[in-house]
């Protein structure tokens, strides 16, 4: 489908060539710009999800709270979960992967640059579609329970009350047509479907990049751990997304077209939803944590001034976690009617996850052991990650003991557990990465004093928020309940939790101030501000748009460190020269490209093609009317039309990896 140079008239648009200004961001296929857009968009949703959490905490600050209605409370905890998982942690991980993957493997871009832009725009439009529920969503009384106190009266529907209210897991039959009429849940189901397409395209792109685009000499076991974790996460996405895609289709068909998959009244089985959801949902939690583990594995050795202890063990433990992660899903379902054999089997398989995780923890500790540690902000966050993740991991192991899990199911103990691994884990790791790679992005350092202030506020606030949830849960406080009575004595600890939540918010404000201030006024970072070990630091900060001026040649793990240091007779590291001098001698120093560099040209088609998908999704929600059918038709025309335009677009540059048909088929999924 590639148009050759002699037929430019056959294309719909001239291929854009801008590299600056508004349109350059709309049409870009540069992995760095895409990564930055992913990052900012994810952070906006982080703020939204955080505000939702604060509303929940105001409601629960004291007994018999009346800040939110029950309907609003349900909507807030559901959208808080959906937002933080699908619209913050996943895309911010994608931001790191996009920005760093080509830099760390020594490539000019990912394997399929236009597909990369496509997945970003599909993500953005999917996210906006999901949140457009606030304008278009409505909830009507569930079947047969009109007038029951606490249920929703349409005449009293508030703005927030019209959001999806079935939890991020959308359990059936609660999220089915009978008990969640109205359109709110449709937005969640179809929104996740669109976001899944974006992740699927990214995962194919990243795997091909890792397999085929590595710099010369960058063997698999010389890749940075972050790249290994990117690879593992991409495989997890590749194999778990199709399962949730089928489940979401079934849920949508139940609601829109009257199929009976999860409708017990028609012979369907609601438990099947739980199996399909968690068959995706458990790999999903490793999709959320493994990128942060990769980041921490980069940060710890740099600031311990030691090589990563047990590199291969950490890499294979990451793969092991991913593999085992497909065999433990039913531990989310111990309270459903599983047979004792199944419960024992899933309990055991859950325990085995602790082995590769433990391997990682001990290797990180051994990396720090005996190192000359520099307590910079990224290092503090990385150490915070290890400590908090251990707590969350240990409470996780308690869930593998089935009788104990029954006691904990649906209590705040569970909430405490997964916030320790996802906030204390993923988000601390993400902040470590943001501070660590900020100079790569901007050429400046973030302010250390503000950074450390941020860390300590967030660290204290985090523990004040989530540690008391352990004991609240063990005392029997149940999740997803909008009020508790004064007699329960849950009040004091809940007040502490609420204060902790606002402390975290204060920490995030410090971070936002630091980021905006440092971007303009931060100390210039120079070439190698952290005495880093990996090759992305051998090129100038901020990264030139062509990345490497010449293709790097890698000869070892931690290649950059070995360029800077020799060993003396006793095995101690001896500095050869400063980084600028060493890099100046490289032929790929990023300053003086020897040959003209061809980069893939920007394109209008990724954003156009992505724009069609939400239209189709709106059409499915309103398919009973003419408007809905029109929307489906218009969306299909836009998507398929831009697909053809994409295929006929002149490449100009033979190295543009735009695999036309591969994309076409990814789209068909």
């Amino acid at each position, binding site marked *: 489908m590639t148009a050759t140079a002699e037929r430019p008239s056959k294309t719909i648009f001239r291929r854009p060539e801008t590299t600056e200004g508004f349109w350059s961001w709309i049409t870009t296929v540069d992995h760095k710009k895409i990564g930055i857009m992913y990052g900012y968009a994810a952070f906006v949703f982080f703020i939204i999800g955080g505000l939702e959490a604060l509303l929940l905490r105001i409601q629960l600050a004291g007994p018999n709270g009346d800040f939110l209605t029950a309907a609003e409370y349900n909507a807030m905890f559901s959208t808080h979960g959906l937002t933080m998982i699908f619209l913050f942690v996943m895309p911010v991980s994608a931001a790191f992967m996009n920005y760093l993957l080509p830099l760390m493997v020594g490539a000019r871009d990912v394997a399929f640059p236009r597909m990369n832009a496509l997945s970003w725009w599909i993500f953005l439009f999917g996210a906006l579609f999901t949140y457009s529920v606030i304008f278009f969503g409505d909830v009507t009384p569930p079947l047969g329970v009109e007038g029951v106190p606490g249920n929703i009266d349409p005449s009293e529907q508030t703005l927030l009350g019209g959001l999806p209210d079935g939890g991020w897991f959308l359990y059936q039959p609660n999220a089915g047509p009978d008990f969640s009429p109205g359109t709110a849940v449709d937005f969640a189901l179809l929104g996740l479907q669109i976001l899944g397409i974006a992740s699927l395209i990214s995962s*194919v792109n990243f795997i091909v990049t890792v397999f085929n685009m590595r710099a010369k000499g960058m063997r698999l076991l010389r890749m940075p751990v972050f790249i290994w974790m990117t690879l593992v996460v991409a495989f997890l996405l590749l194999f778990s997304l199709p399962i949730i895609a089928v489940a979401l289709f079934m849920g949508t068909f139940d609601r829109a077209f009257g199929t009976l998959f999860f409708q017990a009244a028609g012979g369907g089985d609601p438990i099947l939803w739980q199996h399909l959801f968690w068959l995706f949902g458990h790999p999903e939690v490793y999709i959320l944590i493994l990128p942060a583990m990769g980041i921490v594995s980069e940060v710890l050795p740099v600031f311990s001034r030691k090589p990563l202890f047990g590199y291969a063990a950490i890499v*294979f433990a990451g793969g092991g976690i991913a593999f085992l992660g497909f065999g433990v899903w039913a531990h989310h379902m111990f309270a459903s009617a599983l047979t004792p054999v199944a419960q024992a089997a899933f309990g055991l398989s859950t325990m085995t996850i602790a082995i590769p995780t433990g391997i990682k923890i001990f290797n990180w500790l051994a990396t720090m052991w005996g190192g000359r540690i520099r307590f910079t902000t990224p290092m503090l966050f990385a150490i915070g990650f290890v400590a908090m993740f251990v707590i969350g991991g240990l409470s996780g192991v308690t869930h593998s003991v089935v009788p104990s899990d029954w006691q904990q199911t649906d209590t705040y103990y569970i909430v405490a557990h997964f916030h320790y691994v996802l906030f204390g884990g993923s988000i601390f790791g993400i902040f470590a990465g943001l501070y660590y790679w900020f100079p790569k992005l901007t050429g400046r350092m973030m302010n250390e004093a503000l950074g450390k202030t941020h860390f300590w506020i967030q660290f204290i606030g985090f523990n004040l928020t989530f540690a008391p949830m352990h004991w609240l849960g063990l005392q029997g406080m149940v999740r997803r309940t909008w009020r508790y009575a004064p007699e329960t004595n849950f009040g004091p600890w809940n007040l502490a939790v609420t204060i902790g939540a606002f402390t975290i918010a204060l920490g995030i404000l410090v971070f936002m101030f630091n980021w905006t201030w440092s971007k303009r006024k931060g100390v210039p970072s120079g070439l190698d501000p952290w005495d880093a070990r990996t090759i992305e630091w051998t090129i100038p900060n901020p990264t030139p748009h062509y990345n490497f001026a010449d293709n790097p040649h890698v000869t070892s793990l931690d290649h950059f460190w070995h360029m800077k240091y020799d060993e003396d007779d006793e095995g101690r590291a001896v500095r050869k020269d400063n980084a600028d001098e060493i890099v100046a001698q490289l032929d790929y120093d990023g300053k003086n490209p020897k040959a003209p560099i061809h980069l893939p040209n920007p394109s209008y088609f990724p954003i156009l093609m992505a724009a069609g998908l939400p239209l189709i999704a709106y059409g499915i929600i309103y398919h009973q009317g003419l408007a809905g059918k029109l929307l489906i038709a218009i969306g299909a025309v836009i998507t398929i039309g831009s697909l053809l335009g994409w295929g006929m677009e002149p490449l100009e540059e033979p190295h543009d990896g735009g695999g036309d048909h591969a994309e076409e*088929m990814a789209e068909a999924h």
Partner: protein
Amino acid sequence: MADVIEAAETHAEDHGGHGEHESFGIDNRKLGMWLFLSSEFLFFGALITNYMVYGNDTFGATVVPREIYDIPFTSVSSFVLLMSSLTMVLAHHSLATGDQNGTRTWLLATALLGSIFLGGQVFEFYEFINVYGMTLTTNPASSAFFMLTGFHGVHVAIGVIMLMSLFGMSRRQGGLSEGHGMNLELVGLYWHFVDIIWIVIFTIVYLLGAV
């Protein structure tokens, strides 16, 4: 394991053949297609599992999918789809030997056989709905049946569109170039995948279901 990877790569390095990248030596687009298809296998795996869970779930309805299958009819249309894999291989072979006319002929034949299969499926759905009164919403078994075979049909239809695009391009440009040869290979991979999935569906849904 680690040693095996290292050894394999050292071996590759010793024998040269590297461009400017370390690579698995398989074209980016082909690798991407294989990865995408591996994901598709799980997509259909979930749909087939879903049918196996619900295939006998009639819930009191009088009409059940497995009792109204027309095995001889579906066997013929399955045979037609399998033959389209043969014509796909012939199209690929023709392009490899530089026979552009042959390529176009076999592409058209593949698309035609795929369309016949789709026509058979439309006829089957029409009969089930209008003659036997079994619709998407009759019982969980019928929901699962239409969902599985319907999604497979959509995949075949997309394959036919891609085949016709290749055919059209070849007509307009007087043949497919080397770059398009890769496109033909990718469409071929996809097409064979759709056929293989049908063999599984035909066996599990129709043959075993009717026993």
